[in-house]
């Protein structure tokens, strides 16, 4: 059964007629929307979608929004929606898709990501968290430490990579799991950042038990699965949809609001950055047009590097523009924010928070390697660790 855009619109109208957002209970509404295939229309039927082009989704969302439909907790479940879901869809068994995708989309189950480790950093494949299976087909017992986990204290489930065979070279001995965050062996500690907030967590895993049914992909195939997750992450960062979106909008407004602070040198820097932000917006638009045409590319990496650079330069400029006010800060109290807004709070916060933009989700250095090798086809670094068993690597 294939429908056109017009048919899709009609289907949304019919759904809304049958489920009045004003009177239907929130969760009931969301579950029904999922079951009607109107959650993410590009997903297959039976898993919240209708197998339609992804490009049609925005129109559907707009119709639901206009009708006052409840939202599915997008802000708090970005990792679930953006990273866990497409990975489960691609690598999961039917049972896993059945079990996890609906409560994920409705926001009943929030997800976090247990990838990074203090000892591994950019070299994610060097991770040392161990998972040992209790006999063939038995549960996996996981021990180790993860870090940079946003939302871990609110999450019900996690995507997790762990080492299942230390005798293999590092990329080969990794397996991917879906981990229950309510397991008593999971301890979540806030990790305070330079902004004063604790937006991330450290997660300590002690004899955490994961059924083999919650393994995603084959044993030892975890690196490939994790890479699929990560490439989903990067596309979502970088490039504003509208002119003066993001940091440039904030700083341009500060400029317009404060004629008394203007100097020629700051003007020159601001206008340069305005141009760069506008060009990066156009570049993002072009990348999305390429993706929609199915043209491949690692340009998501370039967009993210550029996004980070511009955000950092703009937020640094804003403090110099503010001068005396740039010396003042709002609040150093440690809090665990539910929601992170790169352009929110005060100028000092924006400056400090922007420093993370070139680290989280792949450092700008790693992304430049990716661009050089995958886009330009330049030779990779001489690899000293490629064929060495993980346990014998220098650490």
């Amino acid at each position, binding site marked *: 059964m294939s429908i056109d855009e017009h048919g899709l619109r009609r289907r949304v109208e019919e759904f809304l007629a049958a489920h009045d957002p004003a009177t239907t209970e929130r969760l009931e509404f969301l579950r029904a929307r999922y079951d009607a295939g109107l959650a993410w229309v590009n997903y297959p039927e039976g898993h919240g979608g209708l197998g339609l082009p992804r490009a049609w989704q925005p129109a559907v969302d707009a119709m639901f929004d206009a009708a006052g439909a409840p939202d599915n907790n997008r802000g708090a479940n970005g990792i679930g929606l953006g990273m866990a879901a497409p990975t489960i869809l691609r690598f999961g068994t039917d049972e896993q898709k059945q079990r996890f995708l609906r409560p994920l989309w409705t926001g009943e189950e929030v997800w976090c990501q247990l990838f990074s480790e203090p000892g591994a950093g950019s070299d994610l494949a060097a991770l040392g968290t161990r998972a040992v299976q209790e006999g063939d087909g038995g549960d996996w017992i996981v021990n180790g430490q993860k870090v940079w986990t946003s939302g871990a204290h609110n999450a019900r489930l996690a995507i997790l990579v762990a080492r299942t065979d230390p005798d293999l070279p590092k990329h080969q001995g990794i397996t991917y799991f879906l981990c229950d965050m309510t397991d008593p062996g999971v301890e979540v500690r806030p990790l305070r950042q330079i902004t004063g907030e604790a937006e991330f967590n450290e997660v300590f895993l002690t004899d955490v038990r994961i059924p083999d049914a919650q393994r995603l992909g084959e044993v030892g195939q975890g690196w490939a699965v994790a890479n699929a997750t990560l490439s989903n992450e990067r596309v979502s960062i970088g490039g504003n949809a509208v002119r003066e979106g993001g940091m440039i909008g904030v700083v341009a407004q500060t400029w317009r609001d404060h*004629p008394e602070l*203007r100097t020629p040198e700051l003007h020159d820097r601001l206008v340069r950055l*305005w*141009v760069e932000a506008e060009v990066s917006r156009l570049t993002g638009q072009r990348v999305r047009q390429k993706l929609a045409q199915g043209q491949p590319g690692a340009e998501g990496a370039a967009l993210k590097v550029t996004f980070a650079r511009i955000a950092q330069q703009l937020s640094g400029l804003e403090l110099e523009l503010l001068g005396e006010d740039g010396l003042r800060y709002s609040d150093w109290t440690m809090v665990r924010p539910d929601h992170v807004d790169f352009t929110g709070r005060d100028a000092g916060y924006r400056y400090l928070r922007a420093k993370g933009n070139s680290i989280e989700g792949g450092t700008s250095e790693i992304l430049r*390697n990716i*661009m050089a090798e995958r886009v330009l086809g330049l*030779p990779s670094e001489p690899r000293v660790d490629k064929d060495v068993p993980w346990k014998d690597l220098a650490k």
Partner: protein
Amino acid sequence: MSDVNLLYTEVEDDLRATVRKLLTDRCDPARVTALYDGDRSIVDGLWRALGAELGLAGLLVAEEHGGAGASAREAAVVLEELGRAAAPVPFLTSAVIATLVLRDSEDGTGLLGELASGERTAALAVPLSLAPHAALPAVSVPDGRLTGTVTSVAGAIEADVLLVLADGAVYAVPAAEAVVTPVISLDMTRQLADVRLDGAVGTRVVADAETAVRDALAAGAALLASEQVGVAQWCLETTVAYLKERKQFGRAVGGFQALKHRLADLATGVESATAAARYAAATLAAGDDDLLVASSVAQAYVSDLAVFAAEEAVQLHGGIGMTWEHPAHLYLKRAKADQIALGTAGAHRARLAELVDLPAPQ
């Protein structure tokens, strides 16, 4: 503003392939380099092939006047290819700028048809460095005869007709009526000339020079960005290819991480420049109100990026990039001259600040 197509259509891809093939066959870097030693023999034949035979001279001219009736998007693709080849032809000056000066005029249609067919070639008599928003130069017409000098005019050497500003109007002046003195130029692939008129006879072809010339220059600036993209693409691709081949310390030089990161940054810049130039061309093609912003954004970004690309190409080729034999210098000189052409990046940023309400300190 958001739904403009920034990719290339199939028609545009086909046009590109045709132009590239012709340039590969007939625009040999050694003959281009010979321009610097005064040998201009490549120019006429190449322009005849591109302008008249391929019909690019009339690309932007309506079909009713004998042109192809194509849009600025196609002209942009042609300019990308001309940039990639550092081609020494008056396409930008005659088929874009001079043509656009005449396009909406009643009086100039005869000339427009001749330009479209490639029979004649024209040049707008302004310095190549003139920004679209700068004060326009004009000669005097004391007794109906044009008298005065305009310096550093691009396309004047190749032109049969000069479009000269005087008395608020545009006059078409046969080149034979003017003294055209070639200038030793930084970029000999677009060699400039000083034009002196001494009681020359001209035909009034556009009544309102101000609007027609400013629009044509803004369009020229929007499209020059595509030429600059072509220059930058050549520099990036040639450098990447060279560094994959060139061995030092037992390895391909392109495998050294410091160079990889620089090339990644350059590639990012070239991709961004392409988006900016495409947006400017598409905006021009669509007659969108955002043209002035798009054009200045493109010039502000792409001008500097093309120079950066050429400078990186010279540097990363090592000594060989400094030699006369290697074509890298053709692109360095073209990129640097293009940066100044139709207003520097800085001039366009200053203009943008006004357009987008980022006021300079009073």
